[in-house]
């Protein structure tokens, strides 16, 4: 049936020659041509519903009118200010959730992320308030303090994560146990490092990562937005060119255009929102005074994109590239799908486990930067219960605990859904015990709906 099984270049690991591939199926038409991940679309829909509900509810609370449109108009949930705050509050959990996706895809779990965040935060706080200014003699406010403190924290987080991974991968201790131990150990190592005290205020440069304390202003926000749109469109065009070159089936052009327009709308829309959130006058005046200047009368300025959100964006892009475009990511998903097959393909699954936990540790440290900078100090309880929020975000975002399945963007959306629920309920005055009940129910419900959905589509779970 065949006369030449081996292609001429099969021994050569170099790239094969592009050329028309046989038997390409016809071009898709209609809605399916958009090739949208329907599960993700469902999550976006649920998120939109949550936002809409809280907008109505917050409007209802301050309006005496019986007109729902009036509530919608007066609601405070979908204001630039609240959207800004919501995003800033989500960043810390979202950063860790992207790492948790890899951990769960590998069929592991990490219960220590909240405590690890605490330890990294304590390390960085002590570095910038005691070690560098006093012991190293740099003095408070030195320009090198923030970078050195951050690097120290990131290295500490990565090493601790790698240690967890070594115990799991090489010593074969279940990840649940290793990180349950880590949950207790690192929470109290943090306590030990800070002597149980709240450490602050943190270095001024360090605080730039905290959200309102560090935004890039209106102009640069537009620049970033436009560049992001250009990069997205460029990447889409390159991908399409490659498919044309290989003679693969293509999405129709209109579908590609629609998708590009949606991306551009989302990016520029978000920039427009954060650019319409004006810095309060009092705060502006203080900023001028801090520089020894006097604020001109009638001066206004918008916050623009927070640096912490840019950090999250960079993490998201980096993690998506790892997941989809590198061998590391390919091996993580392959191992999650079938550990035995991965090992038989020559993948070093033990070392892979170390790498995945090291990435998780690095991201915990990065979250520690954002979280402590937002508070402007290190507190003993920073990151407490974050492990549950992070796991919930990943799972709500479609990551399957059975392994092999999960997306980075899903986890970020999951984090956003959780944060929206929580702060929305706080805004309408739901008491905190009830908030937790709702969040718990939503977590289970999200997974249940996902399982039902996949069962209906005939997937083996």
């Amino acid at each position: 049936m065949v006369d030449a099984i081996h292609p001429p270049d099969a021994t050569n690991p170099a790239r094969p020659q592009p050329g028309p591939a046989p038997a390409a199926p016809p071009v898709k038409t209609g809605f399916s041509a958009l090739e949208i991940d329907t599960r993700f679309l469902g999550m976006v829909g649920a998120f939109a519903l949550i936002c809409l509900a809280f907008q109505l509810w917050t409007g209802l609370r301050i309006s005496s009118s019986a007109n729902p449109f009036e509530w919608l108009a007066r609601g405070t949930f979908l204001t630039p200010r609240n959207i800004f705050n919501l995003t800033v509050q989500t960043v810390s959990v979202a950063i860790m959730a992207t790492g948790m996706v890899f951990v769960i895809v590998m069929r592991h779990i990490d219960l220590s992320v909240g405590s690890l965040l605490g330890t990294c935060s304590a390390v960085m706080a002590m570095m910038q308030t005691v070690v560098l200014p006093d012991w190293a003699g740099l003095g408070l406010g030195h320009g090198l303090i923030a970078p050195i403190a951050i690097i120290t924290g990131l290295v500490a987080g990565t090493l601790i994560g790698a240690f967890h991974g070594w115990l799991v991968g090489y010593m074969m201790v279940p990840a649940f146990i290793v990180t349950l131990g880590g949950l207790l150990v690192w929470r109290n190592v943090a306590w030990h490092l800070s002597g149980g005290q709240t450490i602050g205020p943190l270095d001024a440069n360090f605080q730039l990562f905290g959200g309102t304390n560090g935004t890039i202003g209106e102009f640069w926000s537009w620049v970033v937005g436009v560049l992001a749109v250009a990069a997205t469109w460029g990447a889409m065009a390159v991908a399409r060119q490659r498919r044309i070159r290989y003679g693969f089936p293509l999405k129709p052009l209109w579908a590609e255009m629609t998708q590009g327009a949606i991306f551009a709308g989302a990016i520029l829309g978000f920039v427009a929102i954060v650019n319409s959130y004006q810095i309060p006058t009092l705060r502006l005046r203080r900023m001028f005074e801090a520089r020894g200047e006097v604020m001109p009368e009638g001066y206004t300025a918008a916050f623009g994109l927070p640096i912490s959100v840019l950090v999250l964006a960079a993490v998201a892009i980096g993690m998506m590239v790892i997941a989809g475009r590198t061998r590391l990511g390919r091996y993580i998903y392959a191992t999650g799908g079938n550990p035995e097959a991965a090992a038989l393909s020559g993948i070093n699954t033990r070392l892979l486990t170390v790498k995945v936990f090291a990435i998780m540790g690095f991201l915990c440290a990065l979250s520690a930067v954002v979280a402590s900078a937002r508070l402007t100090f290190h507190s003993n309880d920073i990151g407490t219960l974050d492990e549950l929020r992070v796991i919930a975000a990943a799972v709500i975002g479609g990551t399957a605990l059975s392994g092999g399945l999960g997306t980075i963007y899903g986890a970020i959306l999951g984090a956003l859904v959780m944060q929206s629920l929580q702060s929305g309920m706080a805004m309408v005055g739901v008491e905190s015990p009830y908030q937790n009940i709702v969040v718990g129910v939503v977590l289970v419900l999200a997974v249940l709906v996902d399982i039902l959905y996949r069962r209906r589509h005939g997937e083996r779970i």
Partner: protein
Amino acid sequence: MTPLVEMRDMQLAFGGLKAVDHVTVDLYPGEVVGVLGHNGAGKSCLMKMLSGAYQADGGEIYVNGERAVIQNPRDARRYNIETIYQTLALADNLDAAANLFLGRELVTRLGFVDDDSMEAETRRIMARLNPNFTDFTKPVAAMSGGQRQSVAIARAVYFNAKILIMDEPTAALGPFETRMVMDLIEELRRQNLGIFLIDHDIHQVKQMCDRAHVMKNGQLVGTVDVSQVTEDDLLGMIIMGKKPDRGVLEYGSGPVNRTPA
């Protein structure tokens, strides 16, 4: 004639259980050699030492007369030893191309995984191996048994295998797909590959194999010229460990001349 593979005095133990107990087998280019035995006879364990899945506790492997050190699947691949496992060893959540190139991904100049060229190569080889195969974007979990088998076979033959280990390649297949696999084995034999075929189907062994190594309780019962023995002889070796009166080969007597079936 130098054997393509010699496994001399191989040993493998799990605790006190001797899974493979001083077994010596060989394989020549262009022949299909059956590896037969009951469940638990040690045939899969023997082959897994060759494919690098298990590390031998004793014994030596020679490839083309030279000592080969195989401690993991990566080593085995370096000696052009490929394996089609009974379980297929596919990552169900990934598509055909990702599975075909798993562990040996094609990368772009910048070192990123090059999914497009892998898909193109997969389309090309599938067009030859199994023209009915059209699902290039679905995860293999969503495929039929035959399609999954095609992916596993494509993975073994794509990378210029010289030595192929097939563990019950037709066990889960329908008649049409079984025919395709048997044709493929013939084709690979003509290309001078050496093939170890682990199989329970004696009828198929008679059809496909030149020689057969028969194992029982971790030990080698004997090596036979398949054309010289009956199916009953083979069954007697497998079940009772009884050497037949004719067709038994001494070690090192070389390949047998295959009489076309």
